[in-house]
């Protein structure tokens, strides 16, 4: 998908009007391994770009989640509570994490897919 943007901390964003959808990248889910738990915020929480909004855990690792955008949490993917494995099996679809009502535009430092791929591989 051409309009999917990525952060350095491996979150992705797509935007539809004023609403952003946020998840973690395929690269990130593969690094974490089988996801077993996500600790996520409640709708209504204000987020700023770069702020920690939750934790994602696999059996062997735990990682903070960072907001790639500014805005307010509109919805949390409730399916992940019972089925955290969706983050592994479908990171860009059923495994989405948050919907955020954007305040302002998408931060300029987010990368497109090609740039992210390069950065992720170099960083690893």
């Amino acid at each position, binding site marked *: 998908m051409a309009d999917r943007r990525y952060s350095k901390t491996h979150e992705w964003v797509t935007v539809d009007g004023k609403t952003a959808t946020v998840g973690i990248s395929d690269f990130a889910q593969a690094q974490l391994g089988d996801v077993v*738990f996500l600790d996520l915020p409640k709708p209504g929480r204000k987020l700023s770009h770069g702020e920690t909004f939750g934790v994602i855990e696999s059996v062997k690792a*735990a990682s903070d989640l960072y907001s790639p955008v500014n805005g307010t949490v509109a919805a949390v993917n409730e399916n992940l509570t019972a089925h955290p494995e969706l983050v592994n099996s479908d990171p860009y679809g059923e495994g989405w994490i948050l919907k955020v009502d954007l305040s302002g535009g998408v931060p300029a430092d987010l990368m497109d897919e090609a740039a992210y791929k390069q950065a992720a591989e170099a960083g690893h």
Partner: protein
Amino acid sequence: MPYLVHSPQEREEMLAAIGVESMDQLLVDIPSSLRIHDLKLPRGLSEFETMAAVRDLAAANRVFADRLTFRGGGVYKRFIPTAVAAVTGKPEFYTAYTPYQPEASQGTLQAIYEFQSLIAELTAMDVANASLYDGATAVAEAAMMARVHTGRDEILVAGYVHPEYVEVLRTFSEGRGMKVKKGDQPTNKTAAVVFQQPDFLGLLVDAKGLTERAHSVGALAIASVDPISLAILAPPGEYGADIAVGEGQQLGLAASYGGPHVGFIACTKDLVRRLPGRLIGSSHDAQGRRGFVLTLTAREQHIRREKATSNICTNHSLCALAAAVYMTYMGEAGMRQVAEVSFQRAHALAERLAALPGWEMAFPERQFLNEFPIIAPKAKPLLRKLAKKGILGGLEVGRWFRELKGVLTFTCTEVNDPAAIDALLEALSA
């Protein structure tokens, strides 16, 4: 030399295999200015001499007979079934490592899973962990759970909680962003109310009322409980406490001058992810065989590092095993019997002591189980007099609480037989 295996010839062979001529060549990275050539310690002894020296030290202590020990204060002499030491003395248990490789550690893992289940049943809480160091650090770890869970920083200690537990809580709270206060009126700044049931003096507190008061302001209730008492007293789960902690020494562990014993911690479902330390869960292998495994480890320090909310790694597994054997051996009926006998003997003793001239119950209106505070005339010389007769009398609690000068707490358990109680009274009257 004891416990070393290489012969001088094998050492030579090993050096040759490595391709060096001397040990010094293996130690080249150590700056020569740092090298020492002997330790300022005596030469080693034979086992015979070692044990003689150790026995001399043991003999320099005075051990009071269990049945003549009426002192508690957090550590109690109780009947320990022989089965306990027979199990913990099995080298397959005591010389095993932390069960990081589950396939080769099912004995330890299952035993501790049973410990978790037994503690959860006893406290009537949802889940218990694999153990902590002691009752004091268990209170401190529980307070930290409340601090993180509520986002509040004030820990309220209500009533006579064990003074050493409170001291440890204070030491812990520094750096963890907690403030420890005394009182029983929580506010919307309170993360948790900590109380002890029965309290340090042995008296029953209004556990239900304190729990409700904590909940009414959005704080958690942390109950520090005596595990034997739970055979007869309402357990924390029945009055709605959020975290139950305690000292498990009474579950089959020797007094051993204060340790090692075992702390336990159990909580409601909501708090499970905030539990410190190890947790063991039930699992299965590819063939469908049940096995047990360390789980939810992503909470722990080796993964979370500086973001972990507890640094505990080694816990008190072998002591938890002892407690599991004890609880399984005694069963619900055995623990109730022990608790009831202790209760009856303590009440019989209290009545006889209070009838002595100059003695009176310190809190006559309060109920107790098997430990109670009593005002005794000339406590110090009296205790010395008892010691001369081989009796370890009550504990002077004025040492910690100024308002309790002259108060002694006496305790009775199933090991203080009626003749021992007679002996105590006789010694006091002499």
